[in-house]
């Protein structure tokens, strides 16, 4: 196991806006099949880190490797094609497209069919079937042909994940997948995530500690742009620095 390449590895990622350092020497590793949580107080740089890893933001320095392949210079689109996909904290969907259209779009892009303007969409039967299967997995099959904007919020959150799955990711970065979802539903949403196949390595940001401790196998704690601690849940739970970061803030708020 030790000799195997990590699915994702960042090396000393740094990013500043002026004098504000939003990422300082972030080095993390995500082994294959990981279910890692990324936690930290607001403004710790969690979403920034995801933006850096996916290439929506360029790091000032540092390296990113996916399956041992250096992707530091690749644009977002290429990283997705290599198998590095994210979801968004705020729904970033296609409001007027039906879910089946949205996932089929992603599949056609993956299979390089999206440029074929001379062939009807329905000619790509396998893509549609695969898309429908993904929707079925995420219990979205019944709303497959309704415009996305008419779906209840919880289903839109699921569609976020469906869209990411349609790219056939090796590494999936979930930015607060349950953001805005009522507590009762978020556990259900996370059981969907837990049920993802083992060959997908998952890193998720989540604020609800109950969920973090029940779903994550390891936890990365970030504070003001840097990694404070990376450890197993039990260790994180009892670490005094983590307590201080959270309780300290809580007493301020």
């Amino acid at each position: 196991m030790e000799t195997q390449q990590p699915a994702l590895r960042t090396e000393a990622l740094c990013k500043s806006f002026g004098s504000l350092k939003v990422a300082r020497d972030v080095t993390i590793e995500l082994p294959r099949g990981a279910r890692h949580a990324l936690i930290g107080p607001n403004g710790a740089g969690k979403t920034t880190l995801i933006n850096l890893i996916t290439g929506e933001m360029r790091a000032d320095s540092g390296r990113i490797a996916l399956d041992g392949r250096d992707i530091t210079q690749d644009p977002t689109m290429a990283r997705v094609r290599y198998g590095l996909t994210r979801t968004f904290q705020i729904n970033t969907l296609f409001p007027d497209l039906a879910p089946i259209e949205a996932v089929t779009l992603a599949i056609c892009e993956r299979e390089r069919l999206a440029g074929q303007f001379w062939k009807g969409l329905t000619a790509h039967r396998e893509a549609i079937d695969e898309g429908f299967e993904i929707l079925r997995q995420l219990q979205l099959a019944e709303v497959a042909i309704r415009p996305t904007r008419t779906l209840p919020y919880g289903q839109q959150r699921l569609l976020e994940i469906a869209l990411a799955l349609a790219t056939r990711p090796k590494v999936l970065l979930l930015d607060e997948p349950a953001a805005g979802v009522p507590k009762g539903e978020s556990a259900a949403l996370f059981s969907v995530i837990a049920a993802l196949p083992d060959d997908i390595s998952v890193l998720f940001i989540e604020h609800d500690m109950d969920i973090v401790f029940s779903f994550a196998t390891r936890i990365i704690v970030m504070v003001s742009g840097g990694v404070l601690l990376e450890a197993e849940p039990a260790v994180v739970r009892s670490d005094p620095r983590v307590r201080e970061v959270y309780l300290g803030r809580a007493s301020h708020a």
Partner: protein
Amino acid sequence: MTVETPTLADPHDWLERKGRWSAFEIAFWVASLLPFFLFQTYLPLASQIAVTALFAVSVDLVLGYAGIITLGHAMFFGLGAYAAGLISKAGWGEPLTGLIFAAAFAGLVGYVASFIIVRVQHLALIMITLGLGFLTYELANSMSWLTGGTDGLQGVETWPILGVFRFDLWGYTAYGYALAALFLGLVLSRRIVHSSFGLSLRGIRENVRRMPAVGSDYRGHLQKIYTISAAVAGCAGALLTQTTDTVSLDTLSFQRSADVVVMLILGGTGRLYGAVIGAIIFMVARDQLADMNPQYWYFWIGLLLMVVVLVMPKGILGGLARLAGERD
């Protein structure tokens, strides 16, 4: 397999239905033949409308489907018009090859321009389209040895179509020719719209930020549709040249670029027949109100634009469709 619930529609069927020819479309094409029999005196107007509608369809492809706001698309219309005129003046008046030549030329320029277009967004994009439009206009104006300048290109001659159908004084051939071109243009466009490529274009329009996150090379898509659109616009311009045997500078004018956007708004963007219907309304209204001072014509156009934006953001056709409860 899992058990299917009864409410579950088969996605294949549903997608298939979206791409099917509707009764409305068939009725429309039947009606498009009426000018041959009922309104012969309006045949020249009818062919102008068909040309303009094809141009509007080309703009809808970039504006309505890909979300590129262009205020300079007359550039491609005009380039096509001049290309067709010049090849005819050079001694080759065969219309079909002339049309293809013009479309290829406009498409080539569109392809080159697309590298600039995909680099910019927002105001800069509007300015680039505007700037390229003015640039082309001024270029044609200053190259009067080639283009005839403000006098326009005279002495264009177009041979009979397929060597058989002569362009007659009443405009039967011209209308038939323009209508056939419009039909083919729409067949091509609806093919694009209902393809996987068309789906990606809708994705770009709906949420461009998501596109790279699903692995899409959306800039490549934009370049492709921009090139196709330029070729179709060039084709429309060439049709105008071949059916009127002249080319004037105003084929390149900003006015033409702005008018076509107005037509799209009237008919509704992102629905191919919206472009056609908008062109019909606009051209017929202008023909009927030809005696009106152009300034006042634009007063009403301006007022209409304001009202449409405030009241029916999806265009008149879109507004009517919503009233009728049509889902699209």
